């Protein structure tokens, strides 16, 4: 068995359509392991995703994943929000990134377009502190509500240094 789904939608076609519509507002096109990946300025994230959703030839109507990455050395671009979109009909995946600085980590929310983005953005906020503008319920989801820092940022070590209840002696690290 094994369906050989004819890929009428190629990465170069997607790139062309994006360039046509957005010009130099989409850049850093890369093709890693077969998946096209590109970037846009953070205030264009909804416009790009809406275009990818609505366009009849592109039809990226499934949000597979939404997460963030912290690049502490990239000044002004420390936090990247990465969207993985999927065209289920033609079976094509695409990766879309927006970068934001850590001082003003505001990105428009995708939860109006994709209901699945709701919790994924809460998780991203919880771990990285990305503020999703317009999110209906942006509060911590996996960590305790009282936590006052964003643990997955590279500046924080693996273990919580603010805990006073764990006795290092008992853990062999006294």
């Amino acid at each position, binding site marked *: 068995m*094994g*369906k050989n789904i004819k890929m009428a939608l190629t990465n170069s076609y997607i790139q062309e359509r994006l360039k046509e519509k957005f010009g130099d507002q989409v850049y850093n096109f890369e093709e890693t*392991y077969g998946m096209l990946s590109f970037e846009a300025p953070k205030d264009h994230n909804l416009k790009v995703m809406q275009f990818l959703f609505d366009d009849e030839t592109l039809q990226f109507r499934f949000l*597979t994943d939404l997460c963030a990455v912290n690049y502490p050395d990239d000044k002004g671009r420390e936090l990247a929000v990465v969207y993985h979109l999927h065209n*289920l009909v033609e079976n094509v995946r695409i990766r879309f990134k927006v970068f934001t600085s850590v001082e003003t980590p505001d990105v428009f929310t995708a939860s109006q377009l994709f*209901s*699945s983005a709701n919790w994924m953005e809460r998780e991203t906020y919880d771990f990285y502190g990305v503020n999703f503008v317009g999110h209906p319920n942006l509060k911590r*989801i996996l960590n305790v509500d009282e936590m006052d820092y964003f643990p*997955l940022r590279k500046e924080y070590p693996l273990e919580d240094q603010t805990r006073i209840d764990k006795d290092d002696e008992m853990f062999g690290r006294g």
Partner: protein
Amino acid sequence: MLAHQQHNIKLPEGSIEKETTTLNVGPTHPATHGVFQNIMELDGERVVSTEQTVGYIHRAFEKLAERRPLYQITPITDRLNYCSSPINNMGWHLTCEKLLGVQTPKRVDYLRIIIMELARISDHLICNSIVGVDTGAYTGFLYVMQYRELIYEIYEEVCGSRLTTNIGRIGGFERNFSNTAFTKLEKFLNEYPKVLKEFENLFARNRIFMDRTQGTGGISAERALNYGFTGPNLRAAGVDYDVRVHSPYSSYEDFNFTVPVGKTGDNYDRFLVRNAEMWQSLSIIEQAYQKIQEFKGADAEVYHANVPEYYLPKKEDVYTKMEALIWHFKIIMGEVDMPKGEVYQAVEGGNGELGFYLISDGGRTPFRLHFRRPCFIYYQAYPELIQGGMLSDAIVTMSSLNLIAGELDA
């Protein structure tokens, strides 16, 4: 601060109550199979709204993974969907192999498929029998546990553990499947179809079960896709998206199987889809077992690809040969650097598309590893599924969605 005070909970039209009842279907509750909390607002028996809390079993896997070399991450992937941990392990190995550019031999792929489909059967058995338990039928659950036990024994023969298996290695398996493993597999293939048929007969046309599950917890295909549903829950709503067919991995394209699809996405359809998938998995295992028996001679002894940087050499070689000793040391101490790159690999887990997004900056540990957890994503839809329904239907919906707490929180 009570959650329901934050939003305006309005009683529905025609209600005879004066205010809604707040019910805490708390994190420790026999009906929530796992730790997650729902603070429900009820109008009598009907659910008006619910506030969900997850994160009780959050173990910071994504942060942990940034400190561990690749093979040390396998044990933490076990603990995502712990009812079918081999699938998580294989998904992770496939991600690493994609990054490293490793091509696994066919025999390894077929062995992996056997293990993954056994895991899928084990996961769906739990889900379906628990839906039975929640509607009051306890016997089915205990009856099929005997066969889950046999599946665990098969895992034990291969990797030594039963539940959190840490099975396989990058490039293949840690040892060839022993004759005992194949004997147990044959026993399973001989005895299980009859048991599955009995289990199916217990529920599929049972008047009480059908009345409890039909028409409750339904979702349309459009809403399901918008909510990011994948796996049996999406297929019950009518969309035939299965990662094994769309982006075949580990030689799934060599196998003949159908993808069962439901219509209304309600609890009954989900039960039937999972049931049908178990039959399909059984067929795939039989085909894979036949294909494995066709390998002769040296081919029949192959159980891993040649990946010296990540696959521990044989102990006899470590004690006698220089390079093997050096590789052993480098691998154990995590001194091997990964190639740079970003890779996304998806596998069809028991609950849907389990994705691994791995960013490597050329060091010994991942720069970023993100798990795309299907349970977490579709659990968001739960308030919409139970809105306006009865409380007892909400409980059955929760178990028919197959929510595994480990995968919710990671």
